[in-house]
């Protein structure tokens, strides 16, 4: 049994009267690639943000390598430093170059010396094939290139896990490909990941488990192959059918 990296128990998130996440329990082990998918507005992003403690859960607990993050008095900055997060809308720091974006956390969170931080940042950029663009500013890069820098930024601090919240859904299909290739590379290296995505061919290829999420909760989870051949829940079956049809059209 490999170690659990990130886990939530009975996690619930309420915004006003809306219950965005309903009592979700989920554990991600080292080397896992969990692929979460489901209709928009179903609470996937909220769950992802709660797991990264970017949003405080209303109820329930989050554990990072066994340490409870939902207890009062936990140093959340330290915890967040060990989790990589990639945003749907990328959110690079506009005033820093690609290198500057990747370097920032190394310098000020991990407190690496300048030279070391630079080397590590360049290495991360190399991993996403963006080293040639190190000195470009985000606005000078294409969406796909920006997202690859976003991945390098999350990767550089050697996180225990990377959470990617629809990393390609703000990109057009042409640019999606290059980001998916980058993710494939990460998967091959055994990076622990939670990916929210509707890129089904990618899911089938790399996911160690797929999770169908709807109305704030996990409806069905299991090996990728089962979702493609014979999903057990009616909702998942319908959703898969639509997705597969869309993928074929593209």
């Amino acid at each position, binding site marked *: 049994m490999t170690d659990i990296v990130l886990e939530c128990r009975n996690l619930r998130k309420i915004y006003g009267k809306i219950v965005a996440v309903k009592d979700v329990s989920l554990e991600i082990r080292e080397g896992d690639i969990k692929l979460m998918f489901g209709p928009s507005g179903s609470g996937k992003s909220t769950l992802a943000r709660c797991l*990264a403690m970017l949003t405080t859960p209303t109820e329930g607990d989050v554990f990072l390598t066994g340490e409870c993050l939902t207890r009062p008095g936990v140093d959340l900055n330290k915890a967040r430093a060990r989790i990589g997060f990639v945003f749907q809308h990328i959110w690079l720091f506009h005033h820093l170059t690609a290198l500057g974006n990747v370097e920032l956390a190394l310098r000020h969170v991990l407190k690496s010396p300048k030279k070391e931080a630079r080397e590590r940042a360049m290495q991360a950029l190399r991993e996403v094939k963006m080293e040639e663009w190190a000195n470009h500013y985000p606005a000078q890069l294409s969406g796909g290139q920006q997202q690859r820098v976003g991945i390098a930024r999350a990767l550089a601090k050697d996180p225990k896990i990377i959470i990617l919240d629809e990393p390609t859904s703000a990109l057009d299909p042409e640019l999606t490909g290059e980001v998916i290739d980058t993710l494939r590379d990460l998967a091959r290296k055994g990076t622990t990941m939670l990916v929210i995505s509707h890129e089904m061919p990618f899911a089938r290829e790399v996911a160690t488990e797929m999770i169908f999420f709807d109305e704030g909760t996990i409806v069905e989870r299991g090996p990728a192959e089962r979702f493609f051949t014979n999903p057990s829940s009616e909702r998942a079956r319908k959703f898969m059918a639509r997705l597969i049809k869309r993928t074929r059209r593209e």
Partner: protein
Amino acid sequence: MIDLLVRYFPMILRGLLLTVQFTFFGVLVGLVLGILLAIGDMYGGKIASTLIKFYVEFFRGSPLVVQLFIFYYSVPITLHIPLLDRFVVGFIVFALNSAAYQKGYIKGAMEAVYEDQMTAALSLGLSRAQSIRYVVLPQALRIVIPAWSNEFCSLAKSTSALLVIGIPELTSAGKTIASWTWRVIETYTLIALIYLLWISVVMKILDILYNRVKIPGIEVTA
């Protein structure tokens, strides 16, 4: 007009230097205070935010001349203490006044870059203070430069209010020269030209600065 400038050069120069000093002091100290007030307003909680609001309303809602009077005359007289040095009062009022305006500009700029950039910074493990320092402020200050040049412009001219507490700045120098020579129109034209000249020089410098620090690839129309 030139002969006026030559004859009264020391007086005019002293007036100009005072005007320049008060302007720079006001704008720079106002900037630091303005940043602190903006952060205090955004993070300080309800009480701090209410206090800051009163402060800003007072300094924006009353004329500078009145503020100078209050701090130079009214406060010491009410408290039965001797008058403070007029220069000290002048500098303090200028900084406090400018801070009230700059707080608004800076807060606006911070809010413009805030949400996404802050979330991204926090996700890396940076603390809130680090996120403000390394991510939010560097971008907000770039955005604020055009508004800032307005503040500079307006403060530079407001220095003429200092004559009411007897500080011999540029307008005051003009007033003295006009009363000595009776060449009122010429004197004030000369004084106006001097204001125009030095303010345009600073505006040009700020313009260059703005273009220098502009983030490549992003066009902001100010």
